[in-house]
């Protein structure tokens, strides 16, 4: 029996700590593990007993890259529990905050983390040396996203201004207009970026996925909609746990999610794009068509193009919201606590983020469940690795190792997000 092992102790250019281990025996892939060794962080545990209004700020601390997603999913869940519906200008401001996060996160991933893979640079520093104009452009594009979050969220990272019912403080029209110049500039650069990344060399690797994302009748999804899938699932957010479950895996401190009775599924930009293509904004749609990127996109390496298209959308949506902005009379609706269960979901840059809370009469959290996108994608990432390596066994080891890491980075995994769970088992 002849075997060889591909081992990446520490994945580079991903958020958090993990590695990959692949065993090839007698010319076939016999074992694939994305090892998540970042310690568990117990957020669901220490939410218990806290007030409902603390959840947005506590869960925002789960991730420095997608804190808005955590805030929004927790707020959606609380408002669901209390039977509230936030509409009008406040709802628009929430979408604007989400635009900021998508811009920050997607630009970071497209240029700093993923592009070097395609261009053959070990990291973004070498990219900066060879293509300083591209990196300068990316830095300024990202800043436009940071500026939205700083203005609307109170600070660039871990924003503190979103609350159940609305915001603590809403900006004036003049304040928002200060963002406009950079957003318009960024929108046009994002279209250039999409064209640029569409010319990258992509491995021939199409997979059959069950894509899952939120879907809204009129909007490209951020923080509202039903959960739909490419295989025909169409459910309200509150039924999520009837159809999806998390499993413990020995080699991972992050849980693995599967669709019950079906198996792995795929969340994130490709899922959103494939399930909501026609709802993209005009320039995003036009650019996607121009570069022949239309659904279904099934090659995970092309997620970099989809992220660039979604970045155009985020700029355009931000501009639309600011142009039509009328400052709401009140920063927040009144909150009336209703005991019971609340369910919330939103579309983090990396995909669907589900929250569920049980609240008592006093507004205290009795228990919480949080399912981040990376936990949902981990089985699919392992499946991609297995299939990609099996199809490329003749590749030399160094190249195959590089390509395997790249295959993981297709998902922009956030390991820190995925290791927040609390499950303690005592053996006696």
């Amino acid at each position, binding site marked *: 029996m002849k075997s060889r092992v591909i081992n990446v102790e*520490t*994945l*580079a*250019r*991903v*958020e*958090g*700590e993990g590695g990959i281990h692949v065993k090839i025996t007698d010319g076939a892939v016999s074992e694939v593990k994305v090892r998540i060794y970042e310690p568990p962080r117990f957020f669901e545990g220490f939410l218990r007993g806290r007030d409902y209004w603390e959840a947005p700020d506590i869960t925002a*601390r*789960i*991730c*420095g*890259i*997608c*804190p808005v997603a955590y805030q929004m999913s927790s707020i959606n869940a609380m408002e669901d529990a209390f039977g509230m519906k936030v509409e009008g200008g406040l709802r628009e401001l929430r979408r604007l905050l989400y635009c900021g996060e998508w811009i920050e996160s997607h630009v*970071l991933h497209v240029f*700093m*983390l993923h592009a070097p893979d395609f261009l053959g640079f070990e*990291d*973004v*520093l070498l990219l*900066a*040396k060879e293509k*300083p104009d591209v*990196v*300068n452009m*990316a*830095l300024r594009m*990202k*800043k436009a996203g*940071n500026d939205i979050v700083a203005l609307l969220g109170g*600070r*660039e*990272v*871990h924003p503190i201004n979103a609350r159940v019912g609305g915001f603590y403080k809403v900006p004036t029209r003049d304040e928002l207009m200060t963002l406009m110049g950079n957003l318009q500039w960024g929108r046009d650069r994002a279209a250039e970026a999409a064209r640029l990344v569409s010319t990258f060399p992509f491995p021939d690797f199409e997979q059959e996925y069950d894509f899952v994302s939120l879907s809204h009748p009129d909007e490209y999804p951020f923080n509202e909609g039903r959960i739909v899938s490419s295989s025909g699932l169409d459910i309200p957010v509150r039924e999520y746990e009837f159809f999806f479950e998390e499993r413990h895996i020995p080699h991972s401190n992050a849980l693995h999610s599967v669709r019950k009775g079906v198996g792995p599924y795929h969340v994130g930009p490709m899922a959103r794009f494939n399930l909501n293509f026609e709802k993209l904004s005009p320039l995003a749609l036009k650019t996607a068509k121009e570069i022949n990127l239309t659904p279904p996109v099934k090659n995970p390496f092309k997620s970099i193009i989809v992220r660039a298209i979604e970045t155009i959308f985020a700029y355009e949506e931000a501009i639309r919201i600011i142009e039509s902005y009328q400052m709401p009379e009140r920063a927040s609706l009144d909150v009336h606590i209703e005991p019971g269960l609340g369910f919330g979901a939103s579309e983090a840059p990396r995909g669907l983020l589900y929250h569920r809370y049980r609240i008592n009469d006093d507004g205290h959290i009795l228990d919480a469940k949080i399912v981040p996108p990376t936990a949902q994608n981990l089985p699919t990432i392992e499946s991609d690795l297995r299939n990609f390596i099996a199809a490329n066994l003749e590749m030399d080891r160094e190249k195959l190792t590089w390509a395997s890491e790249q295959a993981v980075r297709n998902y922009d995994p*956030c390991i*820190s*997000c995925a290791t927040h769970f609390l499950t303690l088992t005592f053996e006696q």
Partner: protein
Amino acid sequence: MGAEGATNRKPEKRVMTADSPIVLIGVGNEFRTDDGLGPLIAREMRRRGAEGVLILETSGDGPAMIEKWQGVAAVLLVDAICSGAAPGTVHRFDASSKKLPRRYRFVAESHAFGLAEAIEMSRQLHKLPPTAIVYGIEGEQFETGCGLSDRVLKSVPELLTLIETDIRRLRTA
């Protein structure tokens, strides 16, 4: 911990003019014990009223850091360090023209893009200020919780002296 948590609680006074050509950035997370060094030093320097020095705090968003030091004469960065030295060891490294040694690991940084990457990228893009100095203390513990360990805390006065000496030198240069 996520990558980019800004820890500044006080609003930044961003008045970057020729009168304040020095920027001091405390990098770290005050809720991860010794990783709170950067914010602590920033606040102490602010308390001491370091005139002409713009004092900021961040928990390590590399790209955002680059922007903060753009166009200034000197950037002074303070962070907890893991290099294998004894806990409490004070580090000072002039990164103005030399790459940071590989042994320096900055706790606050994201694995994606943190302080070291920000300095080197800035250098590649010709955006690194003429003077860029990294200060730190070798950390002992980085668990969740507030407050520095005794060995790190003991070295704080020495680090502050080092920083203040450099600031005086830079002002008269």
